[in-house]
């Protein structure tokens, strides 16, 4: 009973809480990093160096009046934020944060579950996240959110293709769809897939930016164009859910990138003997560090680049990334067969 129910339940609780905490502090980190990039200080008022700012933000959002626009489709309007939040959280079920650890005399694996179709699960669940955005745009009964949700869905669907194709080439290398299996195969092959699949890695990163609606692909919520995008009409907790979902998705993308391309919880150069002192650092620390690097990149890009235009975004997705991903996939297959 303990093995079957209690431990998974505890894991779920820990992961969910860690995620939500991580998401709120991700917001603070973003504000701080962007502020430093722009020679500002960022939040400084709540707590020392503003470390309690997320708490204040959460309080504000929770206590704020929850407004439903007149003639909005109330039912769908309430459902939409939930539909975008749930997939973002459910994905964490298969993300391996680390190897096994010994805790209270038990061997506990640092992932909620390791399923046979792990990677496929990630792709499918995230593909459902688009509903939240489309339905939010539709149900707000307002033109700007509608335009934004159209943009968003076109963008998400287009870049999903490129991302999935890069994932296929990773699967070709690992021979398994299981997230844990992908990490262990990187250990056994002794190389992170970022080095043997650099093209896939880059495409995944760009696609990840687009999938999470981050700059320079933040068209669906481009404040300057669409007055806030699909969540223009949202306020209070429902807005907070969209907000959390976006940042949770960022963490998902960086976790998946870490797992697939940067060896998950493995230390750098997992098979080089004289670097084995790096093994002192526990695996989950490596995982967090690598994910953090990704998140930092996300923020850095946002502070640097202007925004693409809708047609340019589509052109980049369909005419550059997808053909490149397909070429990379074919090349990987050929090389793999030739080597076998």
């Amino acid at each position, binding site marked *: 009973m303990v093995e079957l129910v209690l431990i998974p339940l505890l894991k779920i609780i820990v992961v969910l809480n860690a995620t939500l905490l991580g998401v709120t502090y991700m917001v603070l980190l973003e504000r701080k990093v962007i502020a430093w990039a722009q020679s500002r200080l960022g939040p400084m008022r709540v707590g020392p160096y503003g470390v309690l700012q997320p708490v204040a933000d959460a309080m504000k959002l929770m206590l704020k009046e929850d407004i439903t626009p007149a003639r909005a489709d109330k039912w769908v309007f309430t459902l939409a934020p939930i539909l975008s939040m749930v997939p973002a959280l459910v994905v964490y079920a298969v993300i391996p944060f680390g190897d096994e650890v010994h805790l209270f005399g038990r061997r506990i694996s640092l992932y909620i579950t390791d399923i*046979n*179709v792990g990677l*496929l699960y990630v792709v*499918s669940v995230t*593909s459902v996240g688009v*509903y939240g955005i*489309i339905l939010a745009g*539709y149900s707000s009964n307002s033109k700007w959110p*509608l335009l934004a949700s159209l943009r968003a869905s076109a963008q998400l669907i287009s870049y999903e293709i490129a991302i999935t194709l890069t994932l296929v080439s990773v699967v070709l290398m690992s021979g398994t*769809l299981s997230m844990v299996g992908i990490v262990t195969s990187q250990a056994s092959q002794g190389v992170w897939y970022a080095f043997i699949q650099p093209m896939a890695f880059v495409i995944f990163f760009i696609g990840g930016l687009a999938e999470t609606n981050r700059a320079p692909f933040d068209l669906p919520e481009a404040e300057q164009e669409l007055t806030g995008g699909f969540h223009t009409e949202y306020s209070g907790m429902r807005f907070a859910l969209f907000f959390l979902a976006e940042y949770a998705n960022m963490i998902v993308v960086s976790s998946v990138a870490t797992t697939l391309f940067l060896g998950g919880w493995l230390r750098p150069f997992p098979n080089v003997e004289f670097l084995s002192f790096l093994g002192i650092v526990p695996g989950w620390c490596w995982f967090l560090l690598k994910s953090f690097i990704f998140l930092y990149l996300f923020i850095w890009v946002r502070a640097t680049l202007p925004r693409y235009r809708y047609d340019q975004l589509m052109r980049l997705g369909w005419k550059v990334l997808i053909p490149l991903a397909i070429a990379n996939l074919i090349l990987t297959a050929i090389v793999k067969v030739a080597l076998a």
Partner: protein
Amino acid sequence: MAEAIAFYVLAACILGFAVLVVTAKNPVHSVVFLVLDFLCVAALYVTLGAEFVAAIQVLVYAGGIVVLYLFVVMLVNVKRPPEAFRAGGRHATLGLALAGAVLVEAAAIAVWSRLSPAAPASAAQTVPVSGNTEQVGWLLYTSYLVPFEVASMLLLVAMVGAIVLARKES
């Protein structure tokens, strides 16, 4: 026990959402119920040990096809208010009667022709790999390669056809 609970809960959800899909006044609500329905079906597949089909169900149906429906519904809805569900017309009575007849017929067949339990397992093809995904993949790329290729051709044709149809004539 757990299996039975899972089955009954999922079956109830599937049928309930299906009824809502058919009866919802607003087509957008129909689409939302359809998504939920398909997610429940995917969960049912998981309980049947068909993880790959479940994942494909979510990816293709819930994440792909229904998005297309949602687009079209939104396009149509934006321009005019949703029409109410008109039950009780001549069509509806006839249709419900027909559907009921089919249900009765199928149920009769099902009940009277109890399947002989478990066709011999030896009928299964021996597949040199383990794991649901690998097995399905193996079958798709060996015994069912031709149908698989035909299906991909079909998808290609459908894609071209859809683009041609939906394109605005200029």
